[in-house]
């Protein structure tokens, strides 16, 4: 081991003699490792942020939207049909595994508080909806089933709406706001959820009881028709089974013939998550490909420079052999030089990658997650590249004939 340690010291000294050459040789590995670490860190950060966004929608949520409708050949978009009703959703409560149901209808309207006003989404919802979506309250309280039943004029403010209608530090609970010139009593302010997966501000919303929305604000063409229904499942494993059951029950209730398409759409979060996972998986594969290519190129660079070095130092190798170096000593010396080059490149790359990721997150505000695993893997791999690409030049050096090597000019 003593010999190995001394060989490492000698390798550092030899490489130190050609600083520029060594640095350029390491560059391939540095760039490869650095890029991979920076990209993986940023990618992991983005993935975690997306997962947090998905989670912010609520867990195990199934959404049912009214379908498109064809009127004289003109098809409306989702929600064009008015056929999805409160009664439909209430029926779905009977499906095993469904723990909570809720529904909602929304419209965009102007909201006024004293001299301030704000254009926002008014969402008429049930208490169950608020539970399913996992909203929590920072001050005041949710509205109750009783308020819902009597279509009380009460409102819950999303955080963004609160900020736009009230002064900071003001307590809005008990205040009166006007929607369509109808006064509503503010009963609570909701905790911020941030942006959703599509980048919309989830907190730019006012929640009022569904019944109030239907009867006093939005009106309806068809009593009990809703904008969207929400179910929450007990566990993620039950989701797909519940979705099938929902489809069966709704088709039956809407008296659809087997040839007719669904007049509703069922979505669940697992589908959204799957799309996200697919994206991040192909991203990871792409990163791996980039990393392998840059490490390959870096390795070839090391091999190339070592071959040059073996030629330049032919006579030195001859001298070393004459004074008693065995073939394995020469082999080890060049192999160690290759590994020192690639491992140092890897180390510098790790440093630059971490620095780059930190800089990116500071400058652009991207979240980054730097995992120790990826640092170790990247470093280990770069060292392995040194062994692999150092083997050929080292072997070539060790096979020189000492007599010819000594005569080499």
């Amino acid at each position, binding site marked *: 081991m003593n010999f190995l340690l001394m060989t490492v010291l000698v390798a550092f000294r030899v490489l130190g003699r050609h600083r520029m050459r060594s640095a350029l040789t390491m560059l391939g590995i540095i760039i490869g490792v650095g890029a991979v670490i920076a990209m993986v860190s940023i990618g992991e950060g983005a993935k975690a942020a997306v997962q947090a966004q998905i989670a912010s929608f609520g867990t195990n949520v199934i959404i049912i939207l009214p379908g498109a409708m064809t009127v004289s050949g003109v098809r409306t978009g989702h929600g064009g049909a008015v056929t999805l009703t409160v009664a439909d959703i209430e029926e779905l409560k009977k499906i095993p595994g469904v723990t909570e149901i809720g529904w909602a209808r929304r419209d965009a309207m102007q909201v006024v508080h004293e001299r301030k006003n704000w254009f926002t989404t008014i969402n008429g919802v049930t208490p169950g909806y608020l539970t399913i979506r996992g909203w929590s309250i920072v001050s005041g309280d949710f509205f109750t089933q009783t308020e819902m039943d009597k279509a009380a004029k009460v409102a819950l403010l999303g955080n963004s709406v609160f900020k736009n209608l009230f002064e900071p530090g003001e307590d809005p609970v008990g205040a009166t706001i006007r929607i369509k010139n109808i006064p509503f009593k503010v009963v609570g302010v909701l905790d911020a959820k941030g942006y959703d997966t599509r980048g919309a501000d989830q907190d730019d919303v006012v929640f009022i009881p569904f019944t109030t929305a239907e009867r006093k604000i939005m009106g309806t063409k068809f009593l009990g028709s809703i904008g969207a229904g929400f179910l929450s499942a007990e566990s993620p494993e039950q989701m797909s089974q519940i979705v099938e059951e929902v489809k069966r029950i709704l088709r039956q209730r809407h008296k659809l013939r087997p040839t007719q398409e669904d007049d509703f759409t069922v979505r669940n979060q697992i589908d959204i998550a799957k799309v996200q996972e697919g994206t991040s998986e192909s991203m990871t594969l792409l990163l791996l490909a980039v990393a392998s290519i840059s490490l390959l190129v870096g390795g070839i660079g090391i091999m190339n420079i070592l071959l040059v070095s073996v030629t330049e130092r032919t006579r030195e190798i001859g001298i070393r052999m004459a004074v008693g170096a065995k073939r394995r*000593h020469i082999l080890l010396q060049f192999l160690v030089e290759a590994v020192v080059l690639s491992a140092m490149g890897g180390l510098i790359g790790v440093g630059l990658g971490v620095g780059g990721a930190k800089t990116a997150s500071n400058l652009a505000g991207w979240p980054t997650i730097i995992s120790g695993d990826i640092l170790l893997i990247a470093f280990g791999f770069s060292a392995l590249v040194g062994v692999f690409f150092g083997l050929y030049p080292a072997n070539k050096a060790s096979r020189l004939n*000492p007599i010819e090597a000594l005569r080499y000019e």
Partner: protein
Amino acid sequence: MSLIVLRDLVKIYRLGEMEVHALRGVSLKIEAGEFVAIMGASGSGKSTLMNILGCLDVPTSGTYTLEGTDVSTLGENRLAEIRSSKIGFVFQNFNLIPRTTALENVQLPLFYKEIPSRDQKAMALQALERVGLADRQRHHPAQLSGGQQQRVAIARALVTNPSIILADEPTGNLDSQASREIMDTLTQLNREGITIILITHEADIAGYARRTIMMKDGVILSDRDAGGVAVGRLVPQETRA
């Protein structure tokens, strides 16, 4: 027991289709403590003989016995071990490793004997002292004169306490003043008991040796002591001036 015994040494090189007979049956004995010069024109086979004596090469046929061991059939690793323990080389062009201090150059053979690094330094310094260059231990070859470089090379040859020092045209690249110094150093080492085999084509350099072997066309032409007496009845004799 003789230090070196060569019997019917033959070395044939193949250059493509052609066979070059570098040695055509060389037999000789060298005793421990001798100072032998091997002379001959280029192509006489003296370099080939030197390579075989130095265990850098093996003969095509014949035997080479070094301190009672037949080394003509050994593998590369065993030959490397013999080089590192029994033989010290001094070359015409010094063959020091560039941009490496004198001390480290002298340490090199110890490195491959895998001697602990602390002992290496002390041993190398001692060898440099023997050639009078202890004060130049931190100098690189380029900072030393030719004579000094050759003395560093001699220190490197000495450091493993070898049985033989093989000097191949050691003064070929030196002026007469430096040549004299180097030959005096070698003579001094020989007095201290080290066997020295000198390869040269200069008669005055060969004159330092107590025995001269002339080679031509791969065979020994003559083998005489300094007084001109054919070897075989070698009588102890003081070195000449």
